[in-house]
């Protein structure tokens, strides 16, 4: 008989038993027949036949064990027994299953995010070989690469299969009813080859399309989303479409899974041989590269350092001080979320651990109540392994049922995570798939062992000694339970400390003085792109819009800015002083914000000394170019302590307009005033030295900030209508109040805090249940003792005090251990904290006090109940 047959027999034992019974009955019948023919009476024959056979039940079981996989059979019996036990105690079962379902489900959901975002390679062939390349120039925040330099690197290196660059920008599609903003990535030849991806439909760019001399329609590769939204059919591929004064032809469509760079709608070919692409000082590309198989990042870095050193000798004027930065592409995409996700995972795992410990304690007290049953099983000859296996099976069935519901929890929780954190990189790849199910299964196994082993060992050992007597009460029997409660307390203190610190940080951030006023400010962008327009034309266009909006009723101030204030955007660079500085003076590293002169009034940033900058009244940019600049107080105090900065000249402010092909070289700018410090680079960043270059054209589609008299959203329609009157072919997009945008910038912070607090509160609730349950059990064991003491005249309140005191001592010790544990754990939070240190004594103290109080309250009820049982009743019970 094969093992399959044995398995079937194990799973369908009744049929097998029937067959064996028939076989045995036949044997006994035949024997009886023979005996009858030898002259025995009917009844005598049958009795003799049966006694000669021996006990048919024992023989049946022995035969059955041969025919079925005995271990499976026993397991199957244990499972059915466990299910029966679960039905007998529905309340207990529901509590345990639900706790486990939530614990396992939440854990799997967070793991699904970790797996998709951090663990899996990028969805490109050999994605681990892709790196991001940026150029680093001493002291400047410069990261982009001059096209010609990228070409040099690509040509001279020996460690890369290929390199390419891209530049993000916005273009406007005016083919529809309303102008529509389109995210565009201008890419160098070989961009798709480096990524190892090709259009799902059509083709990628030809060499001709990368040449400035190419006169055909502009070739465009569309994202799948855009292709679908446009509702265009395959026939339209390559058929040129006229948009405004340009002709476009969609030559290819990418697959839905291809999203690089993120949220791009169309990819277009750069003009690799254009004259402006040959200038080593004009930088605009972000580089990507594919390492040769087997090449490490370190080797590639050494290789490119050598290449750049050669270039430096060849072009000392432009390439001196430039180094190359190589970072795995995946790191640049997901790196920022790494700590957040692992902290979340750590928290959710600690919660699961608490839940397991809690359930282990519950099972332990339940097993203790079943002491009698276990003793009976021993006396009937069950082995210790068999009894322990039965208890373990009960834990296993509970956690398996919990895990099944947990999978459903995980699916909805991971969907919830996608909705709550839409800005998470690779969020679209998060899914509960086979890998996650395997993970869930493994964690279920882990949970079973964690919950089940202690009760199985402990109660089978005890039952061996107790063997039938229910009177023995040793204090040691619930010390394990108190240990489990202690573990829960320590872990939940850790969770609470983490959550508490994050809450304190958010609170501290909301109290910070910003230095600017984000209320009643509407932000939006008006589309524009580099093209055949002169810089002058851009400036005039933007100024016209600003002036016109300023005259709208309800608008109190308007400006454009290169970066929005308060949303964690910043660009640092080094400025130089035209007047010269001492060689020993620190370099003038400062944030560079390009704003139109109305910015300070619109953002309510106060002028401290000097005067506000004015709009330059020249035309013919950049020939007669100078610009006024403002600096903040930190800049003035740090770099020019004790002297006036007014009238000094800085260069470098406008050099950052690197993507502007018409603007190059150093433009000297005069410092005309000093303004107050504002936390523009983020609420959680202290103000740093800042230079405001007053210039209306940081790039073609700058941010507009509009201060309104009332609710900024109420002004949207009027603003849009006014811009449409002036610029019918431009789209107005990214419209939102500044406060909302600042909130969004910290949405992940808040989500993280919110989730951690949720976990911590759940943990606290579990601890409550744990203390309550364990003390109830411990007290129930001591009922006789308590009753006896009361009968002998002990004071009731002293008894209550003593019972509560016992639990509080344990709670206090565990909470202290938890605080020690917190000091280790909260250190990993340090990058997420603001205004509190990871070991903030106030937070930790409050958490410790909270846990002890809550646990104390949980202890009151069982302690009081025990002391108020009439002594005679308790004494008569046994």
């Amino acid at each position, binding site marked *: 008989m094969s093992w399959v047959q*044995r398995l079937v027999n194990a799973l369908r034992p009744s049929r097998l038993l029937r067959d064996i019974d028939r076989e045995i009955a036949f044997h006994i019948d035949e024997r009886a027949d023979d005996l009858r023919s030898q002259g025995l009476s009917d009844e005598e024959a049958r009795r003799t036949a049966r006694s000669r056979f021996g006990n048919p039940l024992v*023989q049946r079981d022995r035969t059955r064990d041969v025919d079925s996989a005995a271990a499976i059979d026993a397991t199957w019996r244990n499972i059915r027994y466990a299910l029966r036990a679960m039905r007998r105690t529905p309340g207990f079962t529901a509590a345990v299953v639900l706790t486990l379902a939530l614990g396992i489900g939440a854990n799997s959901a967070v793991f699904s995010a970790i797996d998709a975002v951090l663990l899996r390679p990028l969805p490109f062939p050999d994605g681990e070989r892709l790196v991001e390349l940026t150029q680093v120039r001493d002291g400047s925040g410069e990261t982009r690469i001059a096209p010609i330099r990228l070409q040099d690197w690509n040509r001279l290196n020996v460690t890369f299969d290929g390199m390419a660059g891209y530049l993000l920008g916005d273009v406007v599609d005016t083919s529809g009813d309303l102008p529509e903003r389109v995210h565009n990535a201008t890419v160098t030849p070989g961009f798709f080859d480096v990524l190892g991806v090709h259009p799902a439909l059509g083709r990628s760019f030809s060499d001709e399309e990368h040449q400035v001399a190419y006169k055909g329609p502009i070739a465009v590769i569309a994202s799948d989303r855009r292709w679908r939204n446009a509702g265009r059919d395959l026939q339209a591929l390559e058929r040129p479409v006229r948009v405004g004064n340009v002709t476009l032809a969609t030559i290819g469509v990418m697959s839905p899974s291809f999203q690089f760079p993120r949220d791009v709608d169309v990819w277009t070919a750069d003009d690799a041989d254009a004259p402006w692409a040959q200038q080593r000082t004009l930088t605009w590309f972000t580089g990507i590269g594919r390492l040769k198989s087997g090449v490490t990042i370190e080797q590639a870095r050494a290789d490119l350092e050598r290449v750049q050193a050669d270039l430096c000798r060849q072009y000392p004027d432009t390439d001196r001080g430039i180094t190359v930065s190589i970072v795995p592409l995946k790191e640049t995409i997901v790196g920022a979320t790494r700590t957040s996700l692992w902290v979340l995972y750590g928290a959710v795992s600690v919660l699961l651990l608490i839940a397991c410990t809690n359930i282990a304690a519950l099972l332990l007290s339940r097993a203790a109540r079943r002491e009698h049953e276990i003793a009976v099983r021993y006396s009937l000859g069950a082995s210790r392994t068999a009894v322990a296996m039965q208890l373990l099976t009960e834990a296993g069935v509970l956690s398996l049922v919990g895990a099944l519901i947990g999978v459903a929890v995980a699916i909805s929780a991971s969907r919830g995570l996608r909705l709550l954190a839409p800005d998470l990189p690779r969020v679209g790849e998060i899914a509960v798939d086979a890998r996650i199910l395997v993970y869930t299964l493994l964690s279920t196994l882990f949970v079973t062992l964690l919950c089940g082993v202690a009760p199985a060992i402990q109660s089978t050992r005890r039952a061996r000694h107790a063997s039938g007597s229910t009177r023995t009460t040793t204090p040691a029997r619930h010390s394990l339970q108190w240990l489990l409660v202690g573990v829960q307390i320590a872990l939940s203190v850790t969770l609470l400390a983490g959550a508490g610190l994050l809450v304190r940080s958010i609170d501290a951030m909301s109290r910070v003085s910003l230095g600017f006023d984000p209320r009643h400010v509407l932000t939006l962008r008006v589309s524009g792109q580099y093209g055949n327009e002169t810089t002058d034309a851009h400036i005039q266009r933007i100024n016209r819009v600003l002036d016109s909006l300023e005259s709208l009723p309800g608008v109190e101030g308007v400006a454009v800015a290169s970066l929005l204030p308060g949303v964690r955007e910043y660009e640092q660079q080094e400025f130089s002083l035209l007047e010269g500085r001492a060689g020993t003076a620190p370099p003038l590293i400062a944030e560079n914000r390009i704003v139109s002169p109305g910015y300070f009034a619109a953002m309510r940033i106060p002028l401290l000394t000097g005067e506000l900058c004015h709009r330059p009244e020249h035309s013919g940019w950049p020939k007669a170019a100078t610009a006024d600049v403002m600096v903040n107080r930190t800049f003035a105090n740090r770099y020019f302590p004790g002297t006036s900065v007014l009238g000094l000249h800085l260069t470098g402010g406008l050099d950052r307009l690197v993507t502007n092909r018409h603007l190059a070289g150093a433009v000297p700018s005069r410092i005309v005033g000093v303004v107050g410090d504002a936390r523009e680079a983020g609420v959680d960043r202290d103000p740093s030295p800042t230079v405001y270059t007053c210039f209306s054209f940081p790039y073609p589609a700058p941010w507009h900030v509009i201060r309104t008299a009332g609710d900024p959203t109420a002004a949207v329609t009027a603003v849009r209508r006014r811009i449409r009157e002036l610029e019918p072919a431009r789209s107005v997009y990214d419209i939102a109040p500044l406060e909302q945008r600042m909130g969004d910038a910290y949405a992940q912070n808040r989500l993280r805090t919110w989730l951690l607090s949720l976990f911590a509160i759940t943990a606290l609730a579990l601890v409550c249940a744990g203390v309550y349950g364990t003390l109830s059990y411990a007290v129930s064991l001591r009922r006789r003792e308590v009753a006896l003491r009361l009968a002998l005249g002990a004071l009731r309140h002293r008894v209550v005090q003593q019972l509560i005191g016992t639990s509080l001592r344990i709670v206090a010790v565990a909470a202290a251990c938890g605080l020690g544990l917190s000091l280790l754990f909260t250190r990993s939070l340090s990058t997420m904290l603001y205004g509190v240190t990871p070991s903030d004594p106030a937070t930790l103290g409050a958490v410790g006090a909270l846990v002890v109080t809550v646990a104390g309250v949980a202890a009151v009820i069982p302690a009081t109940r025990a002391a108020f049982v009439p002594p005679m009743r308790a004494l008569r019970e046994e």
Partner: protein
Amino acid sequence: MSTSKNDILQGTLTLLVLKTLASNRRLHGYAITTHVQRVSGDLLRVEEGSLYPALHRMEQQGWLKAEWGLTEKNREARFYSLTAKGRKQLAAEEESWARFTEGVGRVLRYV
């Protein structure tokens, strides 16, 4: 349990069953018992209860094949027959039995 001398030695039951089935095409359990008893001239008696676990174990080993059938008295019984593997096993067990008795004999003959 009686410890009478005609109880079958532990381990020889397999050999006897295999041999019995080698000389008869197919037999049910009761017939195997009576066959052993008759052929041994009542010297050997199969302990009836332990026959069935042994039969089922041999079936698991693949030495026997079993199927339900009717006896001449029209009763349903489970009939066992030898497989090719069982024949090989019989040869092996016969040989080891021969060696065993030879060995025991020599020890007994030694003065």
